[in-house]
């Protein structure tokens, strides 16, 4: 439709979708660079500084537009990616609408 209407701007789509069992995140742009997205799975590093974080157990996954701080090992979600998180695991796959 964007082509049909000669709209040259880029569709930007960094989204989170959940159903209570699985969490999905998409980082996509029709062209250009999509909005940033990061994830972290090992939250232990925060325990040393933020005592409250000692309550975060293993198997946690956090997906964010930008990192929550410098201590965690944040992984950038590559452009054109679908991330699925559930059961403490993260799966990445290519997301390229055809």
């Amino acid at each position: 439709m964007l082509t049909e209407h000669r709209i040259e701007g880029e569709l930007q789509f960094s989204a989170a979708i959940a159903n209570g069992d699985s969490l999905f995140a998409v980082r996509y742009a029709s062209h250009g660079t999509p909005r940033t997205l990061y994830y972290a799975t090992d939250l232990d590093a925060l325990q040393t500084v933020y005592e409250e974080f000692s309550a975060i157990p293993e198997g946690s996954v956090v997906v964010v537009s930008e990192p929550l701080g410098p201590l965690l090992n944040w992984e950038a979600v590559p452009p054109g990616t679908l991330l699925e998180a559930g059961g403490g695991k993260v799966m990445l796959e290519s997301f390229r609408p055809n």
Partner: protein
Amino acid sequence: MCRWIAYSGPAIPMSLALVTPEHSLLVQSQNATEGAETTNGDGFGVGWYSGHLGTPGIYRDVRPAWNDDNFRDLARHIRSHMFMAHIRAATGSAIQRSNCHPFRHGNWLFQHNGLIPEFRRIRRELLLRVAPELFDEICGTTDSELLFYLALTYGLEQNPARHSAARSAKLKRC
């Protein structure tokens, strides 16, 4: 644009991800460092699954997140195994509660950072592609909510995220 966070794992007080971190979503609402805008003060929202109900709870409002004590309090007192939160920097749609993320349909939650270019020019055409049985649930005026209902129209509930989000993102056959 906007900023958002989503969590999946063992149940934790939501504040541990939303409020406590050094560069938490609350901090980002006033001082985002990687977004198109530094300030995300056009409303906020949080959605969470609580275990005893299939459908998620949501709490949204149009004031900036940093000005809402209830947001901090709820985040401290609600434990959840899956939740998401969003701070908004509007791209043209009105500042109203129904335009705040996340959006909810049944047991599904959706939040978005991005935009459909020249949305107003193609809004009506896109709206007409939403399934009739879903149309009445659209409460707001954002491109984000419309993308969610297009994903639902294209089978989000049957084909989690993959298929329907792809079709929505591509605006296929539009």
